[in-house]
C-alpha cells in the first residue's frame, strides 16, 4: 500500500462553526421583530424588508462581480442581515428609490469599499440609516400610523415616543404599549419584547455574548435613572428610554456586529458604556430625538483603538493562591 497521506499541523478537527451559521442565527433571531413589523404595518413591512434585502444582496453581487472582479459570496448571509437591518431602521412608508440609495451606500461605500465582510470599520446598516437620515430628513422621520391606529381612527401619520418626549411629554402612551411595540417608529425597532426574544436566542446559540447589549442597556438605565432620581420628569424615565426608539434594536443587533465591535470582554464593556452614554446624551440634549445610531457609529470608530488598548485577561496574570 502506498497511499498518499495528508499532512497538516494540528488541530485536526474543527468545531464545524461557519460564518453563514452565525449569520443565519442572527436572521432567525430577527424573526420575532419581523413578525411584529408585519402585524403593525402589514404589507408595507414585507415590501420594504424584501426589497431592502434584494437591493443589498444585489448590489453586493454586482459590485463584487463586476467592480472588484472577485467571486461573490452573497450566501454567507451578511448582506441579507444588512438588508433586514436597514429595513428595520427606516419608516414603513419610505419611498423605494430612497431605500435603494441607502442599500447602495451601505453595501457599496461602507462595506465593500473597505474590502468586504470583516474589513469594514462601520456597521453598514447603521451607516446606511444615518446617510438616509441626513440626506432625506423629511422622508426618514414621517411615521405612518400603525395598522391598528388606521383601523380605529383613520389616522395616517403619528409621532414616535422619543419625538413626543422632546415636544409633548404629557401625551406619552403607556409603557406596556411601548414594550410590546404598538407605538409608531421604524419598521423593526418597535417591539422591545420581540427584540429581547432575539437576544435570548442569540445568547443561547452563543452567537454573541451578553457584554455589549447588557452594558448598553444598563448604561442607559443607570444614566437616565440617576437623572430621574434627581428630577422625576418623564423625559428622564429610564423605562421609557429602554423601551422606546431604536435602543433595543441597536443594542442587540447593530452594536453586536462582530466586525465593528471590540474583540475582548473588557473592550466590549468600554464600547457598550460608550454607546449607552452617547445615546442618552443625544436623546436628552441633542438636536435629534434618537441617538443610538450615532452612538454606535461613533463607537465603531473607536473600536480599533479599544482593541489596541484592551487585552484579554491573561492566564496567571492575577495569580491567586487558594
Amino acid at each position: 500500500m502506498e497511499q498518499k497521506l495528508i499532512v497538516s499541523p494540528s488541530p485536526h478537527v474543527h468545531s464545524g462553526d461557519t460564518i453563514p451559521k452565525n449569520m443565519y442565527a442572527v436572521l432567525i433571531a430577527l424573526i420575532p421583530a419581523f413578525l411584529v413589523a408585519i402585524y403593525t404595518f402589514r404589507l408595507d413591512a414585507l415590501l420594504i424588508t424584501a426589497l431592502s434585502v434584494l437591493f443589498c444582496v444585489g448590489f453586493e453581487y454586482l459590485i463584487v462581480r463586476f467592480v472588484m472582479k472577485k467571486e461573490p459570496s452573497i450566501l454567507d448571509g451578511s448582506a441579507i442581515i444588512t438588508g433586514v437591518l436597514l429595513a428595520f431602521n427606516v419608516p414603513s412608508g419610505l419611498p423605494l428609490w430612497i431605500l435603494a440609495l441607502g442599500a447602495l451606500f451601505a453595501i457599496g461605500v461602507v462595506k465593500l469599499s473597505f474590502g468586504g465582510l470583516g474589513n469594514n470599520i462601520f456597521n453598514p446598516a447603521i451607516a446606511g440609516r444615518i446617510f438616509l437620515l441626513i440626506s432625506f430628513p423629511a422622508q426618514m422621520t414621517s411615521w405612518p400610523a400603525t395598522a391598528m391606529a388606521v383601523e380605529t381612527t383613520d389616522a395616517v401619520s403619528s409621532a414616535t415616543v422619543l419625538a413626543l418626549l422632546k415636544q409633548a411629554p404629557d401625551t406619552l402612551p403607556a409603557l406596556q404599549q411601548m414594550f410590546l411595540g404598538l407605538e409608531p417608529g421604524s419598521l423593526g425597532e418597535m417591539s422591545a419584547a420581540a427584540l429581547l426574544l432575539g437576544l435570548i436566542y442569540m445568547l443561547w446559540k452563543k452567537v454573541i455574548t451578553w457584554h455589549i447589549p447588557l452594558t448598553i442597556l444598563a448604561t442607559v438605565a443607570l444614566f437616565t435613572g440617576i437623572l430621574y432620581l434627581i428630577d422625576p420628569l418623564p423625559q428622564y424615565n429610564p423605562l421609557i428610554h429602554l423601551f422606546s426608539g431604536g435602543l433595543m434594536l441597536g443594542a442587540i443587533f447593530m452594536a453586536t456586529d462582530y466586525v465593528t465591535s471590540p474583540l475582548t470582554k473588557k473592550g466590549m464593556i468600554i464600547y457598550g458604556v460608550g454607546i449607552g452614554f452617547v445615546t442618552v446624551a443625544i436623546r436628552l440634549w441633542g438636536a435629534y430625538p434618537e441617538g443610538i445610531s450615532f452612538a454606535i457609529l461613533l463607537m465603531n470608530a473607536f473600536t480599533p483603538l479599544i482593541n489596541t488598548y484592551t487585552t484579554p485577561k491573561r492566564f496567571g496574570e492575577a495569580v491567586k493562591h487558594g
Partner: protein
Amino acid sequence: MLKSFRIGGIHPKENKLSAGMAIQPISVPAQVVIPLSQHIGAPCQPVVKKGDKVKVGTLIGKSVGFVSAQIHSSVSGTVLKIDKAMDASGYKRDAVFIKVEEDEWEEQIDRSGQLISDCSLTPKEILEKIAAAGIVGMGGATFPTHVKLTPPPGMKAEVLIINGVECEPYLTSDHQLMMEKSEEILVGITLVMKALNVQRAIIGIENNKKDAVALFTKKVKAFPGIEVQALKVQYPQGGEKQLIDALTGRQVASGALPISVGAVVQNVGTLFAIYEAVQKNKPLVERVVTVTGKEVERPCNLRTRIGTPLTTLIDAAGGLPESTGKVISGGPMMGKALASVDVPVTKGTSGILVVPTLEAKRKAMKDCIRCGKCVQVCPMGLNPTLLMNLTEYEVWDRAEKNAITDCIECGSCSYTCPADRPLLDYIRLGKSKVNGIIRARKN
C-alpha cells in the same frame, strides 16, 4: 459543581470509540526500530553495535546531558544496524534496528503480575531508578521524568498532581490503564510522593470517565494523602497549567514552571511506568497505544513494544481503511499528522488516529470577521487573531508583548474559528521566531 480551569476552553466531540476495550498485548514483530531520540532533550549515544546480542531491557542508548533519557531494547535479538529512520516527526533520525529472536528478558526484571506496594528505597535511589529506566512523560510531551522530579535549587514541591484527564478526543489508553492498573498507579504515586517529599497528591480525572473516578475514589482510601477530583469535560483540561489551576486554584505565571506554585504534574501512564521501574526493575520498553478512528474496524487499546511499526498496530485494529486521508500520532487536537505509517511506536505514542479523507482536508480560509470567538476560547487568555496578524506582518515586538510565547498550542482557536483561519499555524511560527529573538538577546 465540577472543577475546571478558569479561562477559555472548548468541548470537542469526545468520540471515545475504544473506551472500555481491554488492553490487548500484540505479538512482538520480526524487527523493531528504536529511535535514539524519543524525548525532549539531547539524543542518546548508541552503546551497542551491529551484531550485538540484546535482551529485553538491555541498555542500547545512553543519555548524554542532564535533559535526556536512557533507551533500552524492547526485544531480544541481534542488532542489525544503527541507521537513520523516519520517526513520527517526519525527520530521519538515528535509530537502532534489531532483528527479533526469542523473547528473553534481562534477569533483574520481575515479570510477575504480583503487586509490590512496599518500598524501602531513599528518595535519591527512587530518582536514580527512574532515570535508569529511561522514563519520560507519557502523555505525549516526553520530557524526561527524573528531571521533572528534581526541583531546581531553592524550589520545593508541595503537591503532586496526577493527570488522568485524557482530554484529547478519541484517546482511551490512559483511561483503560487506570481501570486495569489502578493499584500499580497508586503505588507509583506513593513512590513519587516519597521522591519529592510531598504529603499530598491529587488525581484529576475528567468526568466522562465516571468508572475511573469511582474506582479511584474507592481505592485511595487505603492511601493516605491521595485525593481524587472529578473534573469538567473541557479541553484542554489536561494542559499542565490548566490542570493545576483546576485542582489547586493556583495559576502558574507566564514563563514560570509548575514548581513555582509548588506543583509537580505527572501523567497516569508515567506513574505506571515509574511503578514498574522502581518495584519491578523494568525499564520503559512497552506502552499502551489507542488505535482508533471512525472507519477503523476494531478501535482498540494495545500494549506494544517500543519500536514496533505502526502498521503492525493498525493491522491489529483491522488495517487501514480505503477512505484513509490522514493518520495522526496522538489525538486530533495536538497530535502530529504522519507522512508515512512506516514509523515506529515511541515512548510518547499515546494513540494512532485514522481520519477519513473527507474529514482530513481543511476548508479554505475566509477573512476574519472579528467575532472574537478565538479570544473567548483561548485557555491562556491570549488574543489569537491579533497574534496571527502580528506574525503575518512580522511585528515581533508586539507579538512578544502580547505574550505569543505563552501559547500552549492546544489548537482551541483554530478549532473554533468560523472563518477557518489557521490561527495556530501562524502563532506557532511566530512563537518560534519570538523565542529565537529572546534567546539571541540573552546571548
